[in-house]
């Protein structure tokens, strides 16, 4: 039987999600995103829709904004094998047609090939804090979505908490219960356990005490002929106490005694054993409890299987191993978008934390990384990481543009900090700008160094050249070399360069190779590192922005970007970089 597949998922007003629509991929789906974006809520929604029991209690926190009156809805358009449907519903379930990303009622007179058959399943939270599971028919009527059908479709959940033990025990609806599917076990065990002769196990004193109790009961007209036996308790069936055990150094121990990673893998293995079943698999935090080599192994198993899987992760090694999965990013606004594997692969290797942040800012190069980080520290009054913001090196103008395009195409909100490279790719930049708005900052012309250096008043140029640690020496050397001077004195250089001092500094800062000096290309281009082409250099530029009094010039252009970043993490905008 083919695997059940969620073609489209819609969540409305469930927990922190106001409105969410997603078309996941058929196979393995890995969802990335910063903290509190809602990744676990999505997984929980799927798990709730396909829950194998009706015994779920809701709280008002499960409703968006805690407004219970408005209810919530989780709906999935699913491709399900008809054999599965046939056995499970009292009234017939009629398939819809999947057409252009929508489920539509089949109609006569439609042209083109018929779309695949799909069914619409829904669970709603009512205003009475109750759950209502339904199948929606093409004519708008709804029928009850039975526990039987939900179990037939099946869902495996490896949650983020230690409820994994549930699947290792015979709790109703657990993976182990489904595998063994021994329906009458409960009643057979119940009667067997009830017969156990506990009384005979008592030592003589205890036996005497029990007999005396029996007499006392009789005198007080209480029930008599007392005995001891195994009884269940409120909310705990006898079978729920039965779990898998395995051998550890010759002793049978409950599987719960093994580490959390092993328990997780065990629960998954149990679920996979159930014959003919390809249940939807949900794993929150794939890496939990597992070392990187086991993370990679688990990832392999999950993505190579035939079932549709939904995974979240914060682990870079999981992301690297997810070569056969569809990657998705959930941005801070709650929008989910695809990450094109090809386009982000290189960046993913170099800066794996980009997609694990709440807001990622793609800076064009190393200088920009330092510069932006320094500015953000000022405007956020704390390190950007604290807010889940990560600034990463986009690897150059072309690469950064390609990356921003790939990300913004999917409707995701990222930040960008880039140059204008002689007006190249105006249309592409415009499209990205349209999508990202003020979160994308681009110099109108030139790059960071050029803009800043040009703004420095002539009498402060020497201060600009002054490095942070090792003094101006190496920088002056680069200038002297370009002028062909032996002496690396500022005054000499200034006199020699004359009016072209600033362009000279720019050339050196950018590591430009003078014409005719191609044989010494390496030497000249390495000048850039001496100047600002490092993250530390970028930070230095940010500091000099203020120490050289350049901030008022750049405040109007930089402040919108900084406020956009503040807004993205829920902070109000500011007049100035410091309050």
């Amino acid at each position, binding site marked *: 039987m083919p695997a059940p597949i969620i073609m489209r998922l819609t969540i409305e007003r469930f927990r922190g999600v106001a409105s969410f629509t997603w078309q996941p991929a058929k196979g393995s789906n890995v969802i990335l995103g910063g903290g509190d974006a809602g990744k676990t809520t999505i997984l929980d929604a799927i798990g709730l829709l396909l829950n194998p029991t009706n015994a779920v209690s809701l709280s008002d926190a499960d409703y968006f904004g805690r407004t219970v009156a408005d209810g919530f809805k989780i709906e999935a358009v699913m491709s399900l094998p*008809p*054999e599965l*449907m*046939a*056995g499970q519903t*009292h009234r*017939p*379930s*009629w*398939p819809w*047609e999947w057409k252009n990303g929508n489920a539509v*009622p*089949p*109609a*006569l007179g*439609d042209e083109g090939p*018929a779309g*695949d*058959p799909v069914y619409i399943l829904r669970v709603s939270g009512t205003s009475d804090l109750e759950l209502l599971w339904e199948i929606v*028919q*093409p*004519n*708008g009527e709804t029928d009850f979505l039975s526990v039987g059908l939900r179990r037939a479709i099946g869902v495996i959940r490896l949650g983020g908490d230690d409820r994994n033990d549930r699947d290792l025990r015979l709790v109703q609806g657990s993976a182990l219960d489904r595998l063994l599917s021994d329906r009458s076990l409960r009643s057979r065990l119940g009667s067997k356990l009830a017969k156990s002769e506990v009384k005979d196990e008592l030592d003589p004193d205890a036996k005497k005490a029990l007999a005396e109790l029996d007499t006392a009961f009789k005198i007080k007209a209480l029930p008599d002929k007392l005995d001891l036996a195994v009884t269940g308790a409120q909310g705990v069936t006898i079978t729920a106490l039965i779990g898998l055990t395995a051998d550890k150094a010759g002793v049978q121990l409950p599987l719960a005694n093994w580490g959390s990673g092993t328990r997780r893998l065990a629960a998954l293995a149990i679920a996979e054993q159930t014959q003919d079943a390809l249940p939807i698999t949900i794993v929150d935090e794939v890496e939990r409890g597992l070392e990187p080599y086991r993370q990679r192994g688990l990832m392999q198993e999950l993505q190579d299987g035939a079932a549709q899987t939904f995974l979240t992760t914060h682990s870079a090694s999981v992301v690297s191993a997810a070569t056969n999965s569809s990657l998705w990013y959930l941005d801070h606004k709650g929008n989910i978008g695809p990450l094109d594997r090809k386009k982000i692969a290189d960046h993913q290797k170099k800066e794996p934390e980009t997609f694990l942040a709440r807001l990622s800012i793609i800076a064009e190069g190393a200088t920009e990384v330092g510069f932006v980080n320094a500015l953000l520290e000022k405007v956020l009054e704390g390190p950007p990481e604290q807010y889940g913001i990560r600034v990463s090196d986009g690897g150059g103008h072309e690469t950064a543009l390609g990356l921003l395009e790939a990300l913004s195409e999917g409707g995701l909100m990222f930040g960008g900090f880039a140059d204008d490279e002689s007006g190249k790719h105006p249309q592409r930049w415009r499209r990205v700008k349209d999508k990202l708005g003020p979160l994308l900052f681009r110099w109108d012309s030139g790059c960071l160094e050029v803009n800043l250096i040009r703004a420095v008043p002539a009498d402060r140029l020497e201060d600009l050249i002054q490095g942070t640690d090792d003094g101006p020496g190496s920088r002056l050397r680069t200038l002297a070399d370009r002028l062909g001077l032996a002496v690396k004195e500022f005054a000499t250089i200034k006199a020699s360069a004359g009016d072209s001092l600033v362009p000279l500094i720019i050339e050196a800062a950018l590591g430009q190779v003078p014409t005719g000096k191609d044989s010494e290309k390496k030497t000249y281009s390495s000048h850039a590192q001496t100047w600002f082409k490092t993250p530390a250099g970028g930070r230095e530029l940010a500091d000099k922005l203020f120490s050289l009094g350049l901030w008022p010039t750049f405040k109007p252009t930089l402040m919108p970007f900084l406020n956009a970043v503040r807004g993205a993490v829920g902070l109000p905008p500011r007049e100035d970089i410091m309050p």
Partner: protein
Amino acid sequence: MSDESVHAALRSDAPLVVIEAPAGCGKTYQGAAYARDAAAILKSGRLLILTHTHAACSVFDSRTSGAGSRVEIKTIDSFIGQIAGAYHAGLGVPKDAATWARQTKDGYDLLAVKIAALLKRYPAIARALACRYPVVICDEHQDSTGERHAAIMSLHEQGAKLRLFADPMQTVFTAKTHIGGCPPLDWGALTSQAQAFERLDTPHRWANGCPNLGRWILTAREALKRGDRIDLRNGIPDSVTIVHADNIAQQRSVFVPAPGDRGPIDAFANEHQSLLILTRYNNTATGLRSAFNRRLPLWEGHNRLDLEKLVDALSSSNGDKDAVAKAAVAFVQATCVGFSGTAFANNLLADVADGCTKRRTNKPAKIQALARLILAEPDHRGASKLLSRLADFRTTDADFRPIQIDALKEFYEACRLKDFATASAGFAEISQRRTYSRPSPPRKAISTIHKAKGLECDRVIIAPCDAATFRDDHLSRCLLYVAISRPMKRLMFVVPRVNPSPLTLV
């Protein structure tokens, strides 16, 4: 070809099994027994039995009781209606497709066309149905139009096992042209397509009547099927009688046997056993009623063609009093005798036309009273009240006694139209009730062969067995077979000396 081979074929793994089932050979018994057995071993899904009438549904229901929800029994039109209800938006019909079909002319045929097309375009829907109903039994499948057959075959193509019971010699309903371009069911093609084709050939129904008659009827069926004539000269059992009688009626298609020939016919009819006098056309049946001095009622069956015509006319009358009056008069003349133009109808129409202004006395005054009812309510209510008042006058007034109601049930159903908001709503409701209450024929009755299909009685007279009634075409052969297979004990052919039927050899 025997009960055992049919039993085995049904239970085989063959995906398509066709059983040729002549009347009275135990098809319902075989079908129901197979249904019970098959439902018990179904791994998933249900067994579906599709019939053409609600009466047949009840019969199967009682014979498969105990199978519970594993067996679903519906009419094929209900089944089609159910699919249409689920996909009504894409088919262009309202959500309550079944009611729409009931209230629309040829509604069920139209639905069948749409559903056949839907299942063809969307095999996924047929597959969902085939998974839900892995075994489908069709009763009286010869009555299915091409579209209904196509719809069933769509399920079969998606994996449902089909068991079709049909009698090609009883295809009396699909002769009229129907909506939809699908060619009618091709018996030859169907039997060659089936992996197993068997025939029931034991006349069980006659076990308690006259077994010789049962066997003879099967032989006659074979002759008719081959294209031959039934030989009424030799080899006929004692239970079959031939009476030669001339027709003294003047009107077309009316048969009144000559007094000199009536003796044996009357003697046959007067016996205490149950009787059906069968003929082909409605007006022949009405005429026969007169021939038998109105002592034998008409069996009106389950359709009400004249009532339908009345309802259609009233629905489109739109307050036009003359149109209403004309429709009412037409209905009375169709269902009764004696309401002639000169005696009643012309005066009635004139009074309605001039607004009952003329002063009248005696009988004309009573006619005027009828006319006033239409003037007061020029719609279905007025017409219906007119009919009720007419029926009253019949019993109370000597002037009206010559009016005789032939189609009693139809007439009284028309009288009830006034209780409903519109004529069509009334017709739909009355038809619905009739479908489920399923009246049975009187002990002795006159009937058309169409209306007698599916009935059993002790004795049957076929009158007239002439060339106009039974021509040499497939429909006539089927009608003749249906007629001769109704009686369990005695069969009489009334054959005119002039122009006997080419299907019989006398």
